[in-house]
């Protein structure tokens, strides 16, 4: 594999994406909403309200803390978990354009004629969706951290975020979820020939994140290290499996005839 070719493919996709208005709006708008709207809607009301009653705490409240702190910490962790939706959802929007869009516009034929290997093409195109999605996630997370800390510093007297969970989410889960979503998008691009259909199917990629999120919100799992490791393993094996699947689907000499 030649890194310069891979990077060139990724760079070109990113340049193309920058010029697609709607993709660009999504890439900026959704992370902005995540960074501002979520903490303002969940944490702000709790911080500014009366001390909640000890026996009426929600299931996600952090055990072993004063009630208000417990609820706020739980909400902050939930907001952090929410951030997995970004790397899960963004790649499918991008990949819908750079895979299905290019297939429909017949831009793949000259590309497939170049002396790049299948793996170079696959990784290059995957990276073209991965990098912007991760960048948007990190930028958005920085915004979240700033807002949450401003809101909660008076209550805690220390910076609530970033905490250990956010490090795990951002540095381990987010890239895995992103890889999962990219692989899934590549797989579905071989099956559909319509950008919208690809986007809609691509959203299925957020399923594992959704599942984990609701398990936590309902108090069925708590964020102890066992759960974190288990979820990490599930994600790692799912994304490895899907990547292998997308690699197997990416049969260069079939794309022009079978990918319809």
């Amino acid at each position, binding site marked *: 594999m030649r890194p*310069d*070719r891979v990077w*060139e*493919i990724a760079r*070109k996709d990113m*340049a*193309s994406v920058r*010029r*697609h208005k709607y993709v660009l709006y999504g890439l900026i708008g959704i992370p902005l909403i995540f960074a501002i709207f979520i903490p303002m809607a969940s944490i702000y009301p709790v911080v500014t309200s009366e001390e909640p009653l000890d026996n009426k705490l929600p299931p996600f409240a952090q055990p072993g803390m004063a009630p208000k702190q417990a609820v706020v910490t739980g909400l902050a962790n939930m907001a952090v978990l929410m951030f997995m939706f970004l790397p899960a959802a963004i790649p499918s929007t991008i990949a819908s354009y750079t895979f299905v869009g290019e297939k429909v*516009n*017949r*831009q*793949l*034929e*000259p*590309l*497939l*004629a*170049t*002396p*790049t*290997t299948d793996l170079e093409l696959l990784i290059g195109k995957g990276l073209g969706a991965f990098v912007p999605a991760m960048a948007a996630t990190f930028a958005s997370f920085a915004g979240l951290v700033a807002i949450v800390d401003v809101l909660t510093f008076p209550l805690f007297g220390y910076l609530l975020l970033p905490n250990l969970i956010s490090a795990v989410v951002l540095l381990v889960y987010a890239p895995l979820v992103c890889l999962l979503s990219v692989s899934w998008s590549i797989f579905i691009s071989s099956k559909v020939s319509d950008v919208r259909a690809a986007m809609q199917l691509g959203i299925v990629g957020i399923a594992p994140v959704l599942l984990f999120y609701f398990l936590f919100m309902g108090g069925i799992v708590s964020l102890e290290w066992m759960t974190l490791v288990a979820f990490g393993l599930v994600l790692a094996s799912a994304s490895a499996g899907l990547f292998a699947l997308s690699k197997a689907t990416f049969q*260069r*000499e*079939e794309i*022009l*005839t079978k990918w319809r």
Partner: protein
Amino acid sequence: MIKLQGLTRKFNGLVAVDGLTFEVGEGEIFGLLGPNGAGKTTTVRMLCCLIKPTGGKAFVGGYEVGKDALRVREIVGLLPEAPGLYGELSAYRNLEFYAKLYGVPKRRREENIERFLKMLGLWGRRDDPVATFSRGMQQKLAIVRAMVHEPKVLFLDEPTAALAPESAKTVRDFILELKQERRTIFLCTHNLHEAERLCDRVAITNSKLIAIGSPSELEQKFGPSRTEIRLERVSRKIVDAVRRLKHVKGVEVVGDKLMVEVEDPEAANPVIVEAVVKHGGRVRYVARAVHALEETYLRLVRESEA
């Protein structure tokens, strides 16, 4: 340079390309002619390793298609049926992207892009997004893209479709220039006039190979010979007189022209002219009918379909 041995491609039951066997020499301009759906695009795609043959073999520059796909791709350039450029990027960026994927070093890349864009008259528009280009300009840009790594073998699928006459001429001149550099050029076309002017040899196909040779060879071997005689005025008397002549197989009147089908034009023409003059015809000029390849082509294709 290019060698096909029984090259075949089936699409569930439909045989798009049926056992093509022929060779194309280095530095040759070779034309593939055939009606719509004759398998021209499919053939080119197989030779560029974009789709797999279902039978037979092919070699490009000594490398086997399918087996040595990466090597083949390195030495060929392709103008596909649809230009497939990135509309949101500038012309220059499109070319730069491809040049990098072909591993052309920076200096060379810049020189080539400039040289080819200038040759096809697009240098002034290099920084504009391709989406703002006309269909013909896009076609020319796609030809530059196919050339940006200076391939030994260039495949052009209908290079002058969508081009206005003067652009078509620019592209033909460009192709002839490339021939000077001893590149092998394989082109698919419907434009027989163009094939006649550009190609050293042509193959006429309709899934199967129907005929192959230089345009003039094909005309001689398969084409009806027609002599065109333009008169001041055509009269019944003249037509009847010509029709009675021994070498004449048929006469058709088109406006003030007599289109005479003959077996051996060089023997027949003097006799025909004599007869015309004798019956009061005033000859403005005598010529060999143009579009000779076209007629040959149409006849061969019709016969292959019968």
